């Protein structure tokens, strides 16, 4: 039997789970969520949308194919903690370059293993997303210490933490997109670039003027962590960009920012949608697609000029919107997947087609 360091997860509602620590051992506080994907833990680990969160994997065996340098969705993992039933110490895959324990260690992320992840999932689904502490001071923290940790936790600066410092360009000969990086996944950039797009990527808090100065054909807002209402400056920027008449497209957080900019409202879901099996229905055709999702917040009330394009078959929530007259179009789910099903990939083609159709008119 290997030597292990004991650790526990303390939830805001008092429920505790005792297990073993792995990765980089340090106390951590975060918003505890669960994701149901059975593959793609590396993409999950490096998805900036998880910034500030402690992510629980419902699938019990994680790390089977190790970690490789290719499947990174961002420059490093931003999550606060990683909870699994069992981590794999002897992964095997032709692209495997490192095991998960080492990866977390190198990136200073705390891991917790050997807890009843199903029981944890059920707590979260019954009571909703809540904060949690992972600590090695098992049974040692006092109630006031615990309370203090919860009270001082905030995720309001998540976008600031995950966005880039300086703008950069990914060259391409086709459509020119100005991309606002609020914690965008590389998968999105990859899928756009694959289609020949030129991408001018900007940090999240760049002004509208600076973005427009790049003379893009359209604006693209990717995913990111946290509550969209925590970044009102960005919402304002998006409003200005929409007003120019340029096509504005968005995924996940981008979709929420666009919606807020158009006067819609966003609310928090009980425990979010995290996983690769979420069915969404295309309201125009009636077809249902299986999608990858990762969000806690959702667009809830539509303003007059906005209509829904997709809804979630499980709970009826809004999964996509469009402006009734302007070329503004966004989805909550992830057509780039990474991880997840590739069923909605052609959405990127639709985006580009739309931009090309609007292009002659949008040039002012």
């Amino acid at each position: 039997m290997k030597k292990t360091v004991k650790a526990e997860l303390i939830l805001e509602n008092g429920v505790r789970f005792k297990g073993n620590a792995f990765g980089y051992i340090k106390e951590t506080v975060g918003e505890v969520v669960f994701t149901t994907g059975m593959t793609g833990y590396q993409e999950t680990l490096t998805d900036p949308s998880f910034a500030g969160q402690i992510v629980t994997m419902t699938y019990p065996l994680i790390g089977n194919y190790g970690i490789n340098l290719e499947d990174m969705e961002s420059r490093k993992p931003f999550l606060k903690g990683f909870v699994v039933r069992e981590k794999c110490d002897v992964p095997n895959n032709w692209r495997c370059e490192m095991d998960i324990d080492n990866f977390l260690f190198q990136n200073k992320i705390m891991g917790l293993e050997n807890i009843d992840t199903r029981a944890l999932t059920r707590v979260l689904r019954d009571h909703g997303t809540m904060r949690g502490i992972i600590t090695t001071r098992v049974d040692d923290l006092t109630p006031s210490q615990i309370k203090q940790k919860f009270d001082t936790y905030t995720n309001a600066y998540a976008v600031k933490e995950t966005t880039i410092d300086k703008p950069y360009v990914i060259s391409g000969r086709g459509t020119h997109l100005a991309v606002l990086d609020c914690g965008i996944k590389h998968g999105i950039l990859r899928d756009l670039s694959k289609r020949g797009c030129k991408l001018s990527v900007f940090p999240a808090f760049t002004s509208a003027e600076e973005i427009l100065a790049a003379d893009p054909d359209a604006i693209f807002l990717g995913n990111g962590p946290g509550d969209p209402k925590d970044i009102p400056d960005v919402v304002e920027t998006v409003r200005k960009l929409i007003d120019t008449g340029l096509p504005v497209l968005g995924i996940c957080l981008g979709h929420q920012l666009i919606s807020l900019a158009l006067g819609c409202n966003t609310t928090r879901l009980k425990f979010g949608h995290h996983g690769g099996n979420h069915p969404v229905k295309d309201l125009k055709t009636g077809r249902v697609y299986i999608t990858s999702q990762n969000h806690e917040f959702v667009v809830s009330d539509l303003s007059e000029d906005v209509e829904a394009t997709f809804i979630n078959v499980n709970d009826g929530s809004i999964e996509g919107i469009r402006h009734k007259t302007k070329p503004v179009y966004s989805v909550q789910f992830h057509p780039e997947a990474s991880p997840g099903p590739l069923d909605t990939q052609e959405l990127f083609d639709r985006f580009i087609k739309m931009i090309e159709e609007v292009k002659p008119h949008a040039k002012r």
Partner: protein
Amino acid sequence: MGTKMMATGEIMSIGKSFEAALLKGVRSLEIGQYGLERKSSKARDLETLKKRVVTPDDERLFDMAEMIRRGYKVEKICQITGMDLFFVHKIANLVEMEEELKTMKLEDFTKESLMYFKEKGFSDKAISRFVGCTPPDIYDLRKKWDIMPVFKMVDTCAGEFEAVTPYYYSSYDTENEVVVSNKKKVMVIGSGPIRIGQGIEFDYCSVHCIMALKKKGIETIIVNNNPETVSTDFDTADKLYFEPLTEEDVLNVVELEKPDGVILQFGGQTAIKLAGFFDEMHIPILGTLPEQIDEAEDREKFDAVLETLGISRPKGKGVWSVAEGIETAEKLGFPVLVRPSYVLGGQGMEITYNDDQLKMYLADAFEKDSKNPVLIDRYLSGREIEVDAICDGTDVYIPGIMEHLERAGVHSGDSISIYPPQNISDDMKHQIMDVTKKISVALKVIGMINIQFIDFKGELNIIEVNPRSSRTVPYITKVTGVPVIDIATRVMLGEKLADMGYGTGICDEPDVVAVKVPVFSTEKLPQVEVSLGPEMRSTGEVLGVGYNLENALYKGFIAAGMTIPKAGSTIIATVGNKDHEDFVKIAKRCDALGCNFIATKGTARALKEAGIECKLVKKISEGVPNIIDTIRSGVVDLIVDIPKKANNKKSDGFKIRRTAVESSVTLITAMDTFNAMVNVMEKHIDQDKLDIFDINKDMRK
């Protein structure tokens, strides 16, 4: 194993880790394995093991584990077998843990270390075997430290939504998801995976038992590990526990649910094996009690019962050595029937005709298992009769008396079964009823009982009694329309036959004749003897229904994929000397029908002497082209090969029979079957005029 499938069935196991699921799977196989260490693998040297894992067979998992145990490099195993390192590594984990257990004593366990082993899937039996204590020792330790399994739901959504599937598996975790009700509830033990001797018939019985219990408003729980069946459909019972059918795993469910009763009668040998354990643990069993089951299964006890009742059975006894065997056989008189005790499907059963054959059999049997006796019975050649009956402790109801086409010596599961019986007098039927009642009441049977008789020169003899449901129940139910399992279940719940409205005694016979014909898969299993004998070989069955026996047989043969010869058909025959006389009588009739014969030397001579024309074909030992080539050439419509002694892989007969099967030519290996086939041929049945029957309404006019 290769690209041609050979498995008859499968189990499924669910766990929280690969190791746990794998170990659960291993103990679900019912091969006496509770871990990865196997005696036969241990006896092989490394070179042999290596060769064996490269061309895998059903023991590869254990051979591989043994190699790892001896220090063979894991990566190299991956290379030579092609198996992914991920899986081999998991197997290596288990081997490492097994080796660790070997160094431990009971006192060395801590709560944490024991929990670790349980989490990884080690059963108490496995741990105790490696540590050198008893399973109850481990069980007591677990009880002391509260290391008990919980049950999780299989819900299709990883817990994301509240689900309503009442389908559970065990794991060593913190949260239990089962809501135990306080309604009256009964647990039914399933029959496990499909294999020769215990197929889908038992699942049929389990499902019907559940349906009967449900009708009575009782909460039903099924425990089974076969993913292919209706019993493990989570809609069937109120709760499904997908677990191995071992003592510990079933006990876990019992301890959680605390059923008012457990039913073991419908799970074949798998469930019956648990009777003793349940008795020890004071778990209430519905129906025939364990001591009574034991009386029926234990040969000596049973003989005593028969003695008191004055019922004849072929004389015999259990022997413990070759010498004792020879002595016994000489007293009884050859031929004798020999088999190991406590087996299913007549495994290992054979008929021996002389001292040499018997010596060979016994030597082999005692080498395989020196701890149990070999049973030797006088072999009585006669008509075989089978009965399924329900007893409520006082009265007996017999849904049907079945007659076997093939005489005694062919396993009942492999015989063609005829209902209603065609050759049994009313007087004999009364005797059968009488004896069945006597035995059932003496054994205190509550529920089902299956009895096999031989009519030996007018005298009724008992061969075997099984205090449980049998494989003939489904077909009898459908042909008679009597809900056999429903009645049996109600009896087990305490109802009396007299009150149920079906009466007692023998059920009225329907207006049709139904014939159950066994089906074999032996073409898939090379090196397996094909001829009919005491060891069961069929994997499944078909039914033929008609207004008379020949019509029913015709359909049965066709349904089983056999060809019925007609004028101009070619029949190849090779028959042992002692059967020539009987064979020729039947062959004459074939000849009269216009069939052509090809035969090997001895048989050819017998035919010619009787005035039947036939072509001569060489035996294998006589050179080429020979009988094998003729069969392969496709000119043959039927092969009649009645062996002198089966199961000798080197014999010509074995090869001929295998070729027949592999070339898909209809093969007959018993005289009675040949006779029946010719009876059918003589009727010149016009297929177009044959009736079809909707079993829902056409069985009785």
